């Protein structure tokens, strides 16, 4: 627990207060002075943070503060956007994510992603889950079937769909679809799981199922989760990063962030006084 003060600028937001729980395995992703512009508008300012291996990191902050932008920068989903400029670096276990020769597809294979709205493909449940393996060119039926079962069990959906794997995935309920997307994200056994408000479209029961799931998955995967639900962040994460206006304001141990944050701005936000 140490406060790093850097880039001393005029405003209090120019620096990040950092007091995280470190993982025994060290960080899996290191972000250093990361800046991002959509056209001329800057969306991220000097973000510096380490994402610890095997832990759950929650990203919180008011709407429009750049949580999704940061998350999508991790697996370079932002590459699709035109007129995007970035500065600064990110490393995934030493590999520069924005390095000149990096294989973006290989990089994305190391990071599964779950989106805010469930986005299953218009294919069968089975084909949805094994899609990452299909694009890898895996043909072996037994391997595929095993991967499918493992992923669906991992996302707590197996019991509900094991008899209807050939049905169209679009026929599932919203919560089931979201768990299907989680299964798809973990089917190829990635190192990091990125989740952007995975429960925002779900009812409390589906939400609690997914939270349980995150609990089970941590340790095996490193999880980064964006959420607007403070209780959820408090329940599932070990570290929490509070962002505001494109800056990382405070990044620390979840319990401390929610009980005794270092900055009043954070305090205001987690207690619901603004945001």
């Amino acid at each position, binding site marked *: 627990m140490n406060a790093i003060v850097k880039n001393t600028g005029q405003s209090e937001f120019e620096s990040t207060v950092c007091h995280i729980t470190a993982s025994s395995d060290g960080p899996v992703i290191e972000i250093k002075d990361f800046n991002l512009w959509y056209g001329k508008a800057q969306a991220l300012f000097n973000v510096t943070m380490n994402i610890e291996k095997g832990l759950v990191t929650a990203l919180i902050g008011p709407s429009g503060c750049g949580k999704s932008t940061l998350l999508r920068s991790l697996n370079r*989903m932002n590459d699709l956007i035109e007129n995007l400029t970035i500065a600064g670096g990110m490393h995934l276990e030493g590999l520069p994510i924005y390095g000149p020769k990096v294989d973006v597809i290989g990089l994305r294979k190391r*990071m599964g992603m779950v989106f805010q709205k469930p986005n299953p493909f218009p294919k069968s449940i089975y084909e949805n889950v094994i899609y990452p393996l299909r694009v890898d060119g895996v043909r072996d039926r037994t391997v595929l079937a095993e991967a499918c079962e493992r992923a669906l069990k991992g996302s707590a959906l197996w019991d509900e769909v094991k008899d209807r794997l050939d049905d169209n995935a679009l026929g599932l309920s919203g919560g089931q679809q979201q768990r299907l997307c989680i299964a798809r994200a973990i089917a190829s056994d990635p190192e990091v799981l990125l989740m952007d408000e995975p429960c925002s479209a779900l009812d409390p029961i589906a939400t609690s199922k997914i939270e349980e799931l995150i609990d089970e998955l941590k340790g095996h995967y490193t999880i980064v989760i964006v959420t607007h639900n403070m209780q959820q962040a408090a329940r599932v994460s070990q570290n929490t990063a509070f962002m505001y206006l494109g800056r990382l304001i405070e990044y620390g141990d979840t319990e401390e962030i929610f009980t005794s944050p270092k900055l009043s701005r954070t305090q205001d936000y987690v207690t619901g006084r603004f945001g």
Partner: protein
Amino acid sequence: MKSGETMEAVAVKPTTGAITARRSYESSLSARGEPFLWGLGGALGFGVLLVVGFLVLVFWNGITTFWPKPIEVVTLLSGELVAGEPTRREAFKVGPERLASLPEAAKARIIADDHIARRVLLRTGNFDLYNDDYRWIEDYKIEKVETPSNLFFIERQEWGAFVGRIKSLSKDGAVISGDELTYAFLSSEQQEARQRFRAIKAIEKGEIGEVNFELNQERLKIRKAVLQHGEGAPETKRVEAEVEQAALAMKVRFEALALKSQEIKSQDSKILVTLADITGTEKVTPLSQIVRFYPANDLSLLDKVGIYLSRWSEFLTDDPREANTEGGVLPAIFGTFVMTLLMVVVVAPFGVVTALYLREYAKQGRLVSIVRISVNNLAGVPSIVYGVFGLGFFAYILGGSIDALFYPERLPNPTFGTGGLLWSALTLALLTVPVVIVATEEALAAVPKSMREGSLACGASKWQTIKNIVLPRAMPGIMTGLILAMARGAGEVAPLMLVGVVKLAPELPVDGFWPFVHLERSFMHLGFHIFDVGFQSRNSEAGKPMVFVTTLLLIALIALMNASAVIIRNRLKRKFMVGHF
């Protein structure tokens, strides 16, 4: 602050605020938009009425054309007899000159009727006797109208219909007439005669045609050898000798066939039928020339249904006769179908690939916008311009080069260097490709971004994403584009007249000779058939029924092709677009 004070403050407040005029809560008529709604409804109703009216007209005329009608025998005041099928009745205005020439009684009646008289159009047939198929009969000329029995309506291979009686049949010299000449006997004789007729046709067109085809191939071998090795070269000589041999063998075959057909023909010419029109003028013709005959005024309902169906089956399965105004349209159905199919096969990949590149790969900028606008504008170019382009570029330049490269021995006769099935399909593909491109682009744009992102996040490449997710999902939209393109292409005639459609194609584009599908051949097309029969035939009245029937058929064919495409599309839609929550 005590609660009483608060209460007072609240109670006082409204009086201090500025009170404006009470707003009216009644919305005006124009605000509710009802007049616009009526306008829209009226416009829609008018449009629907036009379409339905058109369809009903085509449908009714189309399905009633083949129904056998009675034959009326009209005795004119002058004593002349006219027999024929009443086709149409109408009122007309009698001019003063004609009125003056009429007898007093008729004159008085017409004047009392506002100078309006009525007339009927009789299909008299017997073109070979009267030099006309139809005749208008004015009602003031008529003495009486009868429908006597034993009058026959006879459809012939040539000269159109004959209306009259069947006098006698001479078979191998023996003459049968009077009571012996029953309808049943005539029918069975006519069946046999038709069989002979078909046999002759099979030999002449089929087997002799085959021999001629092979003979031609052999001759081309010589031309080829001459072009390759030069005149008088030893190789050429050898080829010539070989061809000589083969030709000799074929000649033997040809003669045997010719003999066989001659035999049937001479047998056929011994069975003659003597027809007589209503005035007694006789006409002798081989029985095999009679396609169908029936006693028009003695038919039961069942007989009529039988004739109706047999006419339809002839129409759908036979070759045309009498300058297309009679007989069937099978070659035209076939030509339309094959050409449309070929067009779809060409336009689908071409349009889809173009749209895919424009939408997914090209850098969206000015150039792409210009391309897109140009493509959209292509849809507005008159179709005849495409025909000119197709003739100039496809047939003359492309086809000419193909001929020079691959078929030099056939020159100066063009093979691909003239209009044909392939060039027609390509021309129409060009004509319809904007529709496919626009529809495909829309469909691609409508694929949710989240689906692409989901695929990319799984580590799929851009191409894998397009192939596995985007294209299947866009398929229903692409199919819609193809359906529109197909409907447009199948109904298009003008450009085809320049690039390969003909009035009468001697051969179908698909047959038993290698390579079975002959893309270079000219073909018949239902749309052109309508134009030809309706406006190019010797007697537009004779063509009219065929115009309606052929239009009905063309509409039905297009509807059928569209329906199958729609079924496929809906199946895809069910597969890719369901979803709830």
